[in-house]
């Protein structure tokens, strides 16, 4: 069926191509053929910093030309139809669910890309359509339309996708299909309204539980319909306003979850009374309703501002509040969230410094309106960026967050479940030379729950760089490693530290573009996870090797051929039935009309 569909599309396209009356692609007239070229003898006198296309010519005498009298009669306009099709084979052995975990590549004959850009009314309207993998399991279509010199603009997409919950069991694929439309009308040059609609249908099929039995999480068949209306633009002398309405309706056809309907309105205004002062404020109200349950309401307000204290110093202040009225929720007792912050930025010669503080508080009451507690978080943050030497740039940032008035747990152990301390520091060193650029990053994260004597910390390293060996040949390499540590009061096996695996990722890519008609790239990606995996579960001790060779050659008149060869190997050292090997071969060819 899929092959028939693809063949049908090919036939339709062949007819469409025959009917297409597009002129041959025009090119800009060679400089040697333009009258202005004859005037270019003194181009060198115009300065030595001419851009590439300036260097072609330079009319020294007759500027500005009389309207209509110039050598360039009209700008070239290029309607085009591009057809790109091919053949693909997965050559797959092993676990297909893991291979198709996120998406499904094309199989057999397929139409890789059809893009069409006709001329409607020259230089007034514009239409662009792209259809990819039509007739295949996964496909995607995109379109853009601009009318009336772009004052009315539209954009849309249509897509379908099949994917899997990776498992050793044989299960049906999950499916998602959706489409979206966006239309925007400019009322004035500085103010527009836009309407956005999106429809998603999804069928989720989950892997069954393991040896312990018990009910699996039920499959879902859900739909989500979303639309919003936004009016935004300049309002007032130095103000920018936005007014929006959002409607979202969620339904689960299996009845596992209730239907949820959400509407909200929001208003925001940015006002800059002076070049050195700006104030941004916004309010919104959201209503959430479910059948047979009391309606929920959430109010949000936010105000922020920044002031240039001096020529090199800027202060930002922000405050936001969220008031929640969720009568159907019985255990999440938050009724108010407030957050206030400041950030001071200062420019030093060659360096930027930022220091800031954030204070966040949750005000919690029970459903019967009785008071619970007020946990609050205080965060200190800083950042320093600058050049160490002419080619080296350093970026250091970090934060320290502490929790006060930690809320107790309502479970059997009353100790708080929250981290009472979090800190992180990150440093990045970038180097840029004419043909080489590189970077080294290091991040340390740490979290602690003192009451439970629990700590988790991690060290993350990344080293990478690009070497432009010749203008046409570049080599990219990157290596990343993560180490995680954890400890808790109960050290009996298996304990927390046994569930925090280390991992690494390595990438090497060689890209060759010569002479811009031929492009070849070799990409090798390798990842591995080092895991104690005390429960001998799948997906814990994995190793993947992904080699992808892709190349294309473009002929003189725009036709091209392409090849993708991807031998991939994925293995799970504990559960061998998760392994797969594939050698995807994809041969494509395109023509442009």
């Amino acid at each position, binding site marked *: 069926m899929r092959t028939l569909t693809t063949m049908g599309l090919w036939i339709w396209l062949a007819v469409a191509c025959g009917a297409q009356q597009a002129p041959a*692609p025009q090119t*800009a007239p060679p*400089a040697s053929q333009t009258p*202005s070229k004859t005037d270019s003898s003194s181009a060198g006198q115009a300065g030595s910093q001419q*851009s590439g*296309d*300036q260097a072609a*010519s330079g*009319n020294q005498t007759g*500027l*500005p*030309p009389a*309207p209509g009298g*110039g050598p*360039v009669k009209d*700008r070239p306009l290029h309607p085009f139809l591009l057809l790109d099709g091919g053949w693909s084979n997965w050559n797959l052995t092993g676990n297909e669910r893991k291979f198709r975990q996120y*998406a499904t590549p094309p199989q057999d004959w397929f139409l890789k890309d059809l893009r069409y850009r006709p001329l409607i009314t020259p230089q007034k309207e*514009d239409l662009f359509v792209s259809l990819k993998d039509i007739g295949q399991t996964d496909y*995607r279509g995109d379109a853009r339309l601009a009318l009336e010199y772009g004052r009315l603009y539209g954009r849309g997409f249509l897509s379908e996708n099949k994917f899997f919950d*990776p498992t050793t069991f044989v299960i049906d694929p999950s499916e998602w299909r959706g489409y979206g439309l966006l239309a925007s009308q400019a009322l004035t040059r500085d103010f527009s309204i836009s309407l956005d609609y999106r429809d998603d249908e999804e069928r989720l099929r989950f892997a069954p*539980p393991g*040896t312990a039995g018990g009910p699996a999480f*039920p499959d879902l068949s859900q739909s989500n319909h979303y639309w*919003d209306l936004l009016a*935004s633009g300049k309002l007032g002398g130095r103000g*920018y306003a*936005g007014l*929006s309405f959002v409607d979202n309706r969620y339904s689960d056809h299996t009845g596992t979850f209730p239907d949820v309907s959400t509407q*909200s309105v929001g208003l925001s205004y*940015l006002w800059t009374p*002076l070049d*050195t002062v700006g104030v941004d404020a916004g309010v919104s109200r959201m209503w*959430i309703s479910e059948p047979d349950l009391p309606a*929920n309401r*959430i109010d949000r307000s936010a105000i922020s501002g920044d002031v240039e204290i001096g020529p090199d110093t800027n202060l930002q*202040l922000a*405050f936001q509040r969220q008031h929640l009225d*969720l009568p159907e929720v*019985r*255990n*999440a007792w*938050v009724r108010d969230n407030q957050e206030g912050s400041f950030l001071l930025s200062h420019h030093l010669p060659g360096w930027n410094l930022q220091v800031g503080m954030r204070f966040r508080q949750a005000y919690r009451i029970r459903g019967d309106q009785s008071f619970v507690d007020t946990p609050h978080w205080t965060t200190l943050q800083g950042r320093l960026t600058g050049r160490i030497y002419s080619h080296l740039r350093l970026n250091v940032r970090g934060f320290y967050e502490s929790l006060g008035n930690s809320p107790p747990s309502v*479970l059997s152990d009353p100790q708080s479940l929250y981290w009472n301390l979090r800190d992180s520091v990150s440093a990045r060193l970038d180097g840029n030379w004419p043909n080489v650029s590189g970077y080294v990053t290091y991040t340390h994260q740490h979290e602690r*729950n003192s009451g439970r004597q629990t700590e988790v910390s991690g060290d993350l390293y990344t080293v*990478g760089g690009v070497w432009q060996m010749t203008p046409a040949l570049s080599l990219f390499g*990157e290596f*990343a490693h993560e180490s*995680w540590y954890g400890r808790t009061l109960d050290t009996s096996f298996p304990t*927390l530290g046994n*569930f925090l695996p280390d*991992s690494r*990722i390595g990438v090497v890519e060689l890209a060759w573009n010569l002479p*811009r008609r031929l492009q070849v*790239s070799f*990409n090798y*990606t390798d*990842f591995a996870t080092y895991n104690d995996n005390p429960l001998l*579960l799948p997906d814990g001790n*994995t190793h993947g090797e*992904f080699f992808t060779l892709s190349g294309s050659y473009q002929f003189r008149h725009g036709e091209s051929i392409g090849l993708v060869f991807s031998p991939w190997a994925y293995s799970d050292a504990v559960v061998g039935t998760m392994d797969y090997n594939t050698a995807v071969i994809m041969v494509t060819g395109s023509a442009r009309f």
Partner: protein
Amino acid sequence: MRRRETLRLILLMALPLLLLSGLLVASIATAGPKKKPPSFPLILFSQATPDDYIDERACARCHAASAASMANSPHAPYMQDPHLALGFQGCQACHGPGGPHVAHRAEADHPYQYVISYTRAKPAEIAQACLRCHNDTLTLDHWRRTGHARANVTCTDCHQIHWRDRLGKDQAGTQGQKDPAGILDPAGKLARTPVFPAQPEPKALLKADEPTLCGRCHQAEANEFRHNFHHPVPEGRMVCSDCHDPHPTKDLRKRFHTFKQNCITCHPEVAGPFVYEHDPVSDLTGDGCLECHRPHGSSNPRLLNAFSRGLCLQCHSDKATHFTGRTCWQAGCHASPHGSNHDVLFFRP
């Protein structure tokens, strides 16, 4: 106790407002003229007379390739409207009035003080020039407040106005000297991508697909998509701007119109509100989804920040020996960890 907390709350609310209003009043009181005089590049437009605008076909005499590629750009229709003022039409809408540029072209220190060259202008100057027209989506005041602006990243770092196709070859058929857009930079490229051609079309005028483009600077984040488990960006089911918005005005929707976090846009089944919320992870008091998940990628299934029951042990440390048979939510017990409408221990949805 409660009174003290209420007082703290009021103070918390009032303090930033007081500070802000104080600074506002002080700034207004000490400020001189309300607006600074325009500087480059806006001064080119503010001081231009109608005679300074030349017939734009003259531009193509010297800049034939640029003119041809512009004609095929999605940007083109917006600039051809004859109802627009001269300073908003054609080449001169972006590059400034052509008259002074032509008149001074032979001078030794010419020509970049009389024309806006986007390869030479400073980031703030480029933003000023672009935002003359794009006030309906972003103002200069918005842009100045973004992290990108603070890092000197400007419009043309991501957007390619003179349109080039994916091979770096412009529509006029001319060959570029060097990859001007940097679209061939491999840092953000992902090995899986070529195998999944059904990728979303890059938004108009972006230099490259979003993972490649964003990955040029955000290499560490791009690298996270190479983990065994990742959001399906390499497979083309998502792009960076589905979650992140570099234009802060559009963040209005994300900031105000979601209950909990952005994640529920694509995962509505975990949005709730549930009768029994998993309190610390429900974004009401904790860090929401990020308490348990790493959004770009992870070596652990379901993008978790720990493997199997280790995730739960980080908080529920007293449950280390509680039914160690299997992962807490896959053992058939706490099957609905995001929240439940029926069971306080999340035994079922």
